[in-house]
């Protein structure tokens, strides 16, 4: 895996958000902070969520931008943001967001790994309940 795909600084395990938009902004901010995307990407993430929910099951959502917003992606990156208090994601309770910024296919392997985890309820629970950055890095990479 590429070294800068999942920056440990983009793993935030004790966040809170009042609603879905705030949670998405938090994910976007994490991607901005590690230099993966420019500021406008955050709005693109909100826009993308309006069309179809990025909820993927097991309390996990994978917010990301639109096709047009790839222009402001500097490098493929993922952030992992956990909301222990939960966020109402269009009726689904979400406790973990895996935010995505991608213009190439650098993140494909990591998403495949995430899909495997989510199809295994035990592993999904471990990931959702992770309280250490190291645990998350180990599960996903």
């Amino acid at each position: 895996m590429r070294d800068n795909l999942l920056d440990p600084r983009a793993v935030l395990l004790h966040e809170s958000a009042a609603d879905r938009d705030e949670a998405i902004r938090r994910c976007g901010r994490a991607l901005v902070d590690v230099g993966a995307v420019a500021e406008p990407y955050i709005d693109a993430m909100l826009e993308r969520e309006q069309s179809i929910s990025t909820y993927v099951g097991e309390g996990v959502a994978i917010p990301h931008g639109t096709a047009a917003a790839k222009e402001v992606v500097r490098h493929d990156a993922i952030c992992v943001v956990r909301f222990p208090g939960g966020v109402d994601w269009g009726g689904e309770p979400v406790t973990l967001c895996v935010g995505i910024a991608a213009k190439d296919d650098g993140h494909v392997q990591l998403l495949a790994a995430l899909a495997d985890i989510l199809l295994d309820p035990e592993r999904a629970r471990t990931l959702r309940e992770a309280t250490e950055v190291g645990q998350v890095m180990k599960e996903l990479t």
Partner: protein
Amino acid sequence: MASIDSKDIHKIIVACDAGMGSSVMLASQLRKQLKGTGVTVEHTPVNEIPADADVVVCHSGLAARARVSAPDKVLVPFQIFLGDPAVTKLVATIKNGGTVDA
């Protein structure tokens, strides 16, 4: 209504809005489930469905756009990104033989 026999399915396209998130995830799962069948799985934005696609899989919220983009293709819409019954049925049909209807 388009339909296709399982033996004529060689390429499945998972179509998505941005092609960077959920379609990538679903394509990786489909690829794994169809390993050994000779069927290739790719993911593309919904407005760039290639001409050689045999079956298009996309979220039901994108189905209308997929029908405009690829009117002659067999379309399998799904609601849930992982473990959707429509996708499970598609995989079973490819493996066991049968017809996939749009």
